[in-house]
């Protein structure tokens, strides 16, 4: 208790630290938002709740890390992870996901849960259980007497995440495929009647999700660290964000992603870093309770 009060006291004594916490939170939050957006896409279009979401992120990180070991510039790891994870996503769709789409919720949950375990163990066998990270060797920008520090590698990572998000949004709004995906999300049967090859749309959506996650992972390995069993952290965050923001609410997903990043940083500053994940789960609980209360008052069908 004393420690918690001491930590709050620090925040009051050094108000600038608040700004630092928010900056740190927003930077990691941008990546949570990316993974969450992919999850919302798959969830919304094919009604598959992908429990392996975080493991796709970590797999992307390992792709980028492995490419760097082979002598490729780390920044090229991000597009490379995007492309390779697209391919892996497609294969996984054909092997596993396409068989469970039409089934009930539990089949797809079980399938993706199994997928998550498989992916983590395969990464462990391939790359070992040690922590990996790529050091870009860039400097860190310091502000406010060195209390605020922004590593350039993180800054680049966040910019890449933002441009990827922007790219995906434009693609969804403007391209034919984007339209087809949105049409399928609204009503798959009607889309089929109107000549949309929904099977192709599903495969495309899942591959796109996998690729987005892969790019997020490649950014994470540049600015933070990865380990084969870290997937679950990103899965949990992605679920919290999508549950909080709702499907098909892109600005909501981004806002929730940044918000949860900042909330976690505050939580870990005040209660200790051990409670970081607890904060995310607590937020999920709160969101669910609040939603339930709202829904009770206003009966409606899912949009």
């Amino acid at each position, binding site marked *: 208790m004393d420690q918690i009060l001491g930590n709050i006291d620090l925040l009051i004594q050094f108000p600038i630290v608040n700004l630092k916490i928010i900056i*740190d939170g927003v930077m990691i939050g941008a990546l949570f938002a990316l993974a969450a957006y992919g999850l919302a896409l798959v969830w919304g279009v094919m009604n598959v709740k992908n429990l392996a979401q975080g493991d796709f992120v970590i797999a992307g990180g390992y792709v980028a890390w492995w490419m760097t070991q082979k002598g490729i510039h780390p920044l090229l790891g991000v597009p490379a992870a995007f492309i390779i994870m697209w391919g892996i996503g497609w294969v996984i769709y054909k092997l596993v996901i396409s068989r469970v789409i039409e089934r009930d919720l539990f089949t797809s949950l079980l399938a993706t849960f199994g997928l998550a375990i498989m992916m983590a163990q395969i990464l462990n066998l391939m790359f070992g259980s040690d*922590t990996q990270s790529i050091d870009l060797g860039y400097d860190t920008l310091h502000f406010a007497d060195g209390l605020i*520090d922004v590593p350039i590698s993180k800054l680049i990572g966040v910019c890449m995440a933002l441009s990827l998000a922007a790219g995906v949004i434009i693609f969804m709004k403007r391209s034919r495929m984007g339209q087809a995906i949105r049409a399928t999300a609204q009503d798959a049967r009607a889309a089929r009647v109107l000549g949309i090859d929904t099977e192709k749309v599903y495969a495309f959506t899942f591959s796109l999700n996998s690729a987005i996650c892969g790019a997020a992972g490649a950014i994470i390995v540049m600015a*933070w*660290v990865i380990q084969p069993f*870290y997937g679950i952290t990103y899965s949990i965050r992605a679920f919290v964000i999508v549950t909080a923001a709702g499907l098909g609410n892109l600005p909501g997903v981004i806002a929730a992603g940044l918000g949860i990043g900042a909330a976690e940083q505050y939580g870990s500053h005040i209660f*200790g870093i051990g409670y970081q994940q607890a904060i995310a789960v607590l937020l999920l609980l709160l969101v669910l309770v609040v939603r339930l209360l709202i829904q009770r008052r206003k009966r409606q069908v899912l949009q």
Partner: protein
Amino acid sequence: MKKWSAIFAPALVALATTAPSSAYAAECEEIVLGSAISLTGKYATNGVHAKNGYEFAIKKIKENGGIKVDGKCYNFNVIYYDDESKGDRGATLAERLISQDKVQYMLGPYSSGLTKAIAPVTERYKIPMVEAEGASRSLFNKGYKYLFAVLSTSEQYLASAVTLAEEMAKKDGKDAGDIKVAIAVENDPFSLDIRAGVLEDAGRVGMNVVIDEKLPRDLSDMSAILTKVKLLKPDLLVVSGHSKGAATAVRQIKEQNIKVPMIALTHCEAADVTGNFGDAADGILCSTQWAETLSYWDPVFGTAANYEQEFKSAYPEYKEKKVPYQTAQASAAVMVFMSAFERAGTLDKDAVREAISATDMTTFYGRIKFSDAGNNIAKPMVLRQIQNGEYNVVAPSAFASHGLDWPRK
């Protein structure tokens, strides 16, 4: 497992039949030791390191003329089984070694967890076990009478950093009470042991613990702690969270430009902080059980450096890397058995147990003397400082090869 023993049994027979042809073994009899060790599964890498350490020591002892017990000459032979890195498997295999293979003396498995699983079995059959790879202090508060460990227990891993910080503060004209300590350890038994050791030592000299936090199991960001470090300016920062803790700490200490006069970590080698982060790791203190630059000596292996050299020529697969301390301490465990047999002057199990318990010897691995609980109380943990990308021993000062760079820049 059946398959394993099927492969193994003929190999043992082959070993036994070819052994008499060698010049050393001709006039020597055999003392059989048993060990369940991780040759597959998650501990396989370190399990193999340990097994190589056992085998290398046995070979060296043989070359040195064997073990002299009451005028007769003996050599060791070890029956190994693969415990697949699983505790229940380890316990079953220990039973099997004792009741079927009639093994009277055991060498330890790899890791605290496996040792914890096997110790109750050896205890029940009153079989002395000298282990080299289980450091958790929870092994030594159960009142075991037949368990002996050559390595330092985990609460000592970073405690010597506290002593070092105190020395440095005194030199700087500061009082121990002015020293501020920040601790960040993972919430697992091993790391909590480390925290307990640091807290105990810091408390004894009256240091002020300003940060005491637990790291999550899936740590990838500890900037919240480091921000507090920046605000509270501790004189000593201790981080232990396996290889992810070391990697995250080194990375973010550099990014956030953290200036703490002394930073001590565990698992620097496993995280390869020098290879991954280059200069950022400079000045950091890392704990280790043993280093090849230490000035320890014994008649079988010579100096620690000599051990390293001869081991590498016997096992060429280690040429490119440093010989891990897991290997060195495994060899030291065999040395303890050798010395105990010679001092006991008999193969009687209880007499040998008494002799092990009375061990007080110097080896290339360090001094070995057991407490009543069975842990080695004579060997200090070693602290190495990363200086220009090299791991140099800086503490304990009696064996240090290099001076400490302090304060860390």
